[in-house]
């Protein structure tokens, strides 16, 4: 089963994704902020991570930077959820590279097709 780590302080996002992606064979794990996500990744890295930007404690941007510092080879693809208004504030992600963006409210169908695409790409790289 492919594992997706959802990092969001709002629990409904993870639940919506779990319900919608279950039929595609995704198991969803949840972390409520960046620090929790780092712990979860250290014990058992997921196949893909989706993270919100704004969270209490460590936010999505800090999480991505931290992951980049800890795992420079990037063990799994990252999707970042962002609001429509924050379209221009993506330079940091471009600098890190390999980060895809999703606009909130996220469309589970879009996530499903993006996940498939990303994993296909990963496979090609390997």
């Amino acid at each position, binding site marked *: 089963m492919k594992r997706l780590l959802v990092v969001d302080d709002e629990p409904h996002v993870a639940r*919506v994704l779990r319900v*919608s992606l279950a039929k595609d064979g995704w198991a969803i*794990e*949840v972390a409520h902020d960046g620090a929790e996500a780092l712990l979860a990744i250290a014990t058992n890295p997921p196949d893909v991570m989706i993270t919100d930007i704004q969270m209490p404690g460590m936010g999505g941007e800090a999480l991505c930077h931290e992951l980049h510092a800890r795992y420079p080879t990037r063990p799994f693809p990252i999707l970042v959820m962002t609001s429509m208004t924050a379209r221009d504030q993506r330079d940091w992600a471009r600098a890190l590279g390999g980060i895809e963006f999703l*606009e909130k*409210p*996220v*469309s589970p*169908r*879009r996530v499903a097709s993006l996940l498939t695409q990303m994993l296909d790409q990963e496979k090609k790289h390997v």
Partner: protein
Amino acid sequence: MSEAQTHGLARYGRWLQHSAGQSFTVGIGAGDGGLLWSDTADSPLAEALAGLPAQPLAQTPGMQRQGTSAGDLFTRAVALPEAAGDGWLLAMARTDAAPTDIELDALADAMDDVAAALEDSTHLNAEMDLLAGELAERYEELHLVYEIDRHLANQDLGTEVLQDLLQSCAEQLNADVACFVRPADNLTISATNLSKPIHNLDLVLVEMRGDLFRFVASSRSTVVINGTEDPRRAYIFTDMPYKVLACPVFQGIDMPAMLVLLNHADKPDFSNSDRRLGEVMAHQIANVMRMQGMFAEMRRFTEQMAAALIEAVEAKDPYTRGHSERVHLLSMRIGQGLRLRSEEMENLHWGSLLHDVGKIGIPDAVLCKPGRLTADEYTFIKVHPERSYEILRHVDRLKGAIDGARHHQEKFDGTGYPHGLRGTNIPLLARIIAVADTYDSITSSRAYRAGSTHEAAVKEMTRVSGTQLDAELLDVFLRICDEDPALLVQLGVRREWDDQ
């Protein structure tokens, strides 16, 4: 069983452990006989479970006692959360001595409490999953609406808007083809997101305007055809082995168009959710069409007002008939040659069409006088660009075009009128119109003389290049004339060899 789920169960297990007291070892078992959680490692419960005769889960409420090879096992059926399904709360006495009735009553109560809490939580979870499913649907709709909104906000309402909307629609609904069909105009706009090729796509798109459209128009509601054996396939284009979702696009009570999504037969069926999203999309397309209609009407109104103004000028001076149109045509060609942005082209369009509107203010006796004008009469003529400005400034939409009309009589060396501007101080649009205006004035016939040939006009304009006309723009213009002689035929300009 994922970690999170085991953790969830552990909480209930520990609760049971505390409530049951020291006399029992407790655990939670799955319906298939596995042990999901226990209070000790190497729990005797595992062995007891294995020794349990294979039987459907006891539906009797309350705690049951079952004899096993490992000793008496106390069980209570319970619905477990997530995919774990049905299971048991389990307990066995820790000592060989049989538990007292009081201990057993306490255990039964504890099992009832824990089972009730577990089942509540299970039901709540299932309910929340249902809600989350609903929420997911709403997210899809909202996402699509936002997507549509973004397309509409970022563009004027050309046909490419529909193209973009269809593309979003195809991607969002993961459909192979999304198309907009309006048979009255023989119009089909389509976007594809193909999972595999459709070899006769063009034919399929064309055929939709016929039977499928008539079928949807007569049902006046969304048509979903998934099955290959669906009897309704008899009514639509038969060589179309695809799954079809067709939503009518209404304008008032008319149905001038429809939105169609197609999927290969091996893709999942179009669902109720797809249907709803399709309808949302169709409504948005209806809005776009309505707005496009209003835009076109506004545009037409402006064109007609402009035509009326031009007619008013030309009514005064029959010899200038067609002049505005010709200057417009030439100006636009120069504008294209310069690759002006669409906004500037729009301004050039109106500026060149309306450049002579101020002539309405010139007395007929002066405007139509054959032969040379006196200095006084010429003053009237010199006022006309400023008059054009005074007339056009009342129209907001023409703001950007006014300078073109106001300064088209300026000369490059600064000797023109009304303001004596020099060189590139003269607005670009005015310099373009000046080239076109000069050419048409020389080549068209007037009250007092016949029009000159193209060659004579070129000679004369080259003579005043850099003094009267912008040399660079003149070069662009002459290049256009060389490359496209048909343009001169269209304008009705005489050529040198016509006279021979």
